[in-house]
Structure formats: structure tokens, C-alpha cells
């Protein structure tokens, strides 16, 4: 288990007119054993710095880093290196050693950990089979595709049997199809090895696809943290909400919505309601029910269903027209069905 307690990283001012930079500001989080934890936010939110505080590639200015209950924040020298060997890390640009073959790259951490030669060979073979690259053992990184490079990097990161794998924007340089393959591999490794995975990303799809829990970061602060489904279906913090909206199709909807003469012409005094429904309730069916029950007409302006780790999360923006009293009854009915309804305009 990894815990960050009130971790801050402040860079001193650069140059004469520079100001100090609070890359991470009082961030606390906990990564449980065996889970896939996501840290998501826009570029510059401090995600990469935060994840580097875990293996102390960046030393926090204040706060504590606990690994399995042990405070590692102040470790130095050999102890620090031993701690790092227990944490694997992969990067956006793979960072494979170009002068070494695939084999050589995977073997490198084992060689430095003083593992005997025969054992090393066997381990490398096993790791490459695990990531599906046994046939490219003799190739050089420059001969591989991005996805293959990341697989090699994963094999290398797992060489010393770490308990945690840190992924710093590991899929950001890959195309969507390759991204899915790498995510699948990570999920599979998480399941088969029981390894905890910390995923840093700005891609919402990555978090939706594999993370159990996630934290959202903005300006160095963690604005919200919880299970991915809760975060997406019921964000509490306004900035979390803004982030989720901007990163999904809803953002586009809000934009057109503010334009003159757009889909939502509300001169007749009606309102737009935003419905968020989870699990089984189906939005479209609900719309026909309220028409039958309350004669409230629902003009659908926006609709989207997300699948988060296989669970549907629907979003619907509707312009409700009808008798105002009936509308409020309809809204109450909708809410009774477990659907979140808010008036947005």
C-alpha cells in the first residue's frame, strides 16, 4: 500500500523575475494493494511530479510518503535504491536503452540487482513471453513500434518483481488501438500478478477503461478522489465537474448551447434539464413514460452513454415542455427512478 500524506513539491523561483512553482500542493492519496489507481488532470496539473514523489525521483518539499506503512520520504543511497527496485515505472516515451537489444533492456535491472546469469536468462524469457514479445528478443528498440516498445518497457519494469507499477502517461504517445492493447495488458498483469498499478494520464478513456479508483488533479491539488464510477456519475467538486465536462462530449454540448439560435431556443420559458442515470435505468424509456404519465414532452438535445469498467453511465440533456406543474411532477418521478436531474438553463 502506498500513501501520500500532505505532499507538496515547491520549486524555487527561476531567474530574477521568476515566482516559486507549486507543482504539487498538499496532496494526499492512498493506493491500495492490487488496485489500479488513476491520477487524471490536464497537462501541467502536477500529475507527473506527484507520481515521481512516490519513488522519490522528486523529493517532496513537505509531507510524507509511506510504502506499506514505512516512511520512505527521507531514504538515501542504497536504501533508497532498494526501495525503488520494488517499484516499477514506465514512461510516455518508453525510455529504452537504444544501444541494447530488447533482451538487454529487460536484463539490465536484473544484472544490477546481481541476479546470477542463468536465472537472468530464464527470467528475461518469461517476462518477454508475458508481454508477448518473445520473438523480438534480439531486436533493437529502434526496430520496434511504439506499442512494442512500451511492452518491452513493461517487461523491464516488472523484472525485479515490484509490488507497484507506475505508469507516467504510458499510452499518451500511442494510437487508440495500441493504447487499448497496452491497457489490456496492464489489466491482465494486475489480475495475474496482483500488482498495484498507478496510472497517470490526461486521457479520460484510459481511466474509464482500467481504473478502479482515481484522483483528479488541478493546479497541483487533488480536487476529488474516489471510485471511477462515482467520480464520473456524481462529481462533487465544481472543478472536477468542469474537467469531466470538458474532457467528454458534454463540453461540446455546452459550447453549442451558449451560441445564439442553437438547438436550445428557450424563449418560450421552458428549461433544460440535465439527467444522469446509472446502471439499469434507461433514459429514453423514461422520456416516453413522463409523456404518458404527465403529458410532458421531452426534446432531447444531447445524449451519451459511457461504459465505465463495463457499467453504463448515461447523460441526457432535455428540454421539457408542458404544464409547469406537470413538469415538476415529472422531474420528481424521474428522481424517484434514481436518476439525477438538474436544471441547467
Amino acid at each position, binding site marked *: 500500500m502506498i500513501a501520500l500524506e500532505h505532499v507538496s513539491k515547491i520549486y524555487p523561483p527561476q531567474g530574477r523575475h521568476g515566482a516559486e512553482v507549486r507543482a504539487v500542493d498538499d496532496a494526499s492519496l492512498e493506493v491500495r494493494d492490487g488496485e489500479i489507481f488513476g491520477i487524471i488532470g490536464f497537462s501541467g496539473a502536477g500529475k507527473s511530479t506527484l507520481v515521481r514523489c512516490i519513488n522519490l525521483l522528486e523529493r517532496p518539499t513537505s509531507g510524507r510518503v509511506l510504502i506499506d506503512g514505512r516512511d520512505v520520504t527521507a531514504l538515501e543511497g542504497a536504501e533508497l535504491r532498494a526501495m*525503488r527496485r520494488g517499484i516499477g515505472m514506465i514512461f510516455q516515451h518508453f*525510455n529504452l536503452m537504444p544501444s541494447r537489444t530488447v533482451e538487454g533492456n529487460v536484463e539490465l*535491472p536484473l544484472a*544490477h540487482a546481481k541476479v546470477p546469469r542463468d536465472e537472468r536468462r530464464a527470467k528475461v524469457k518469461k517476462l518477454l513471453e508475458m508481454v508477448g514479445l518473445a520473438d523480438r528478443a534480439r531486436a533493437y528498440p*529502434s526496430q520496434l513500434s511504439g506499442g512494442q516498445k512500451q511492452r518491452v518497457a513493461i517487461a523491464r519494469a516488472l523484472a525485479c518483481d515490484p509490488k507497484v507499477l507506475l505508469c507516467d502517461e504510458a499510452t499518451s504517445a500511442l494510437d487508440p488501438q495500441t493504447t487499448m492493447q497496452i491497457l489490456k495488458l496492464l489489466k491482465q498483469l494486475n489480475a495475474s500478478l496482483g500488482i498495484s498499478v498507478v496510472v497517470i494520464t490526461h486521457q479520460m478513456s484510459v481511466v474509464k477503461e482500467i481504473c478502479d479508483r482515481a484522483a483528479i488533479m488541478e493546479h497541483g491539488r487533488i480536487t476529488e478522489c474516489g471510485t471511477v464510477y462515482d467520480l464520473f456519475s456524481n462529481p462533487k467538486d465544481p472543478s472536477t465537474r468542469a474537467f469531466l465536462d470538458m474532457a467528454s462530449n458534454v463540453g461540446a454540448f455546452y459550447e453549442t448551447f451558449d451560441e445564439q439560435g442553437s438547438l436550445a431556443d428557450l424563449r418560450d420559458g421552458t428549461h433544460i434539464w440535465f439527467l444522469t442515470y446509472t446502471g439499469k435505468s434507461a433514459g429514453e424509456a423514461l422520456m416516453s413514460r413522463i409523456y404518458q404519465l404527465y403529458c410532458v414532452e421531452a426534446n432531447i438535445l444531447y445524449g451519451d452513454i459511457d461504459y465505465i469498467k463495463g457499467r453504463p453511465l448515461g447523460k441526457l440533456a432535455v428540454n421539457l415542455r408542458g404544464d409547469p406543474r406537470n413538469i415538476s411532477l415529472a422531474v420528481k418521478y424521474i428522481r424517484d427512478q434514481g436518476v439525477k436531474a438538474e436544471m441547467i438553463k
Partner: protein
Amino acid sequence: MNSLNAFINWLMPNFEPLKGEFFECFTDTLVMIAVSGTIAWFLGVALGVALVTSRKGGIMPHPMLFTACDRSIDVIRSIPFIILMVLLIPLSRFLVGTGSGLAGSFVALVFGTVPFFARQIEQVLSDVDPGLVEAAQAMGFSPFEIVFSVYLRESIPGITRVTMITFVSFVGITAIAGAIGAGGLGDFAIRYGYQMGYRDMIWLTVAVILVMISLFQFIGGIIVRKTTH
């Protein structure tokens, strides 16, 4: 065999009487290159590594060490070699016991080469992707391991390339050293080619140096090709 000798005599009429001396001078040059070159190479690489690791943001930041290395390189590099040689005579006497002759040239040749070479090594090592260093740190490598397994290992083509460049200017300064008493091909060329005006001996010296440098470039080229992936 006779016809070959006749051909050489026709080509270089002054060669026959100077043959012995020429080979002696050639050997001196080879000794200068082997001894000073080897020492200078290792010192240069070490200094280059020191610069890259000790600078701000390096793997073992040490501002004092960095500034000391950085400044002394600049100072030594600004002194013209021929003046540096004279300047270093006392140091040479202290280190190798003499300030003149072949042995007396070693110190000056090392001082004349290391700063230039170290700067180039620094440049080559700076070109190593910081991501590789970070990955090595994340894998729990010690600074020592990072220097050898990442910085030096990943820079073999670059180090070879700058070694070849430095070699050319290094051969240049061995000739200057020769002119002020270290012996070697430079000395030979000055004495017979310049003072006696034997044009054929100048040509011979030039040809031998060209062959030497070409051979070195050729080997370097192979190393670069074999280590670039």
C-alpha cells in the same frame, strides 16, 4: 627488391641516409600518441563525466566541483599550446623528472588535449536522453552504475566520433611539441624539410601522418557503425 629500392631512391633521394632517423622519429611520435593519448583520453572522459554529473540537475550535483572543472578547462584552453608547453616545464620536471625530450612532452600534450576533449565529451554525454537517466534512477541504479550503463554505454558512437576529431588536433600538437625538443615527426619535418629544405622528406612526413589519421578514422568509423542502432 632492387627495383623497389631504386624506385624509392628516385622518389625520395634523401631517404636512404635518413632512414634510421626517420623511423626513430616515427616511433617517438607513436609513443607520444600512445602514452599521452591514452592518458588524455581517460582524463578527458573522466572530466567530461564529472562535468555532466556534477552540474545543476545532474545525478550528483556538486556546484563547487563543477565550477572548478568548468573554469580550469576554460583557462587552460585559452592558452596557446606552444606557450602552454613552456609554462608547464616545471610541472613536467616535478611529475616525470624532465621538462624536455620525449618524456618531457607527455605532460604538455595531456594538458593541451584534455580540456578540448573533455568539453566534447561533456557535449556528447549531455545529448543522452534525460529520460534514460530517469529510467535508470527509477530502476534503482547507483550514480556509478548510471555513468557506466547509461551515460558512457549509450554514448559510445558519440565518444568515438569526438575521439576521432580530437585525434587529428592531437597529432597536430605532437608536431608542435616536436619542434621544441620532443622529437617525433614534427621535429624531423622541421629539421630536414624546413631547415635543410628536403622537399621529399616533408612529403614523406605528410604521407605518413595522413595514413595514420586515415587508419584511425577508418577504425573509428567501424566502431560508430557497429554501435549505432
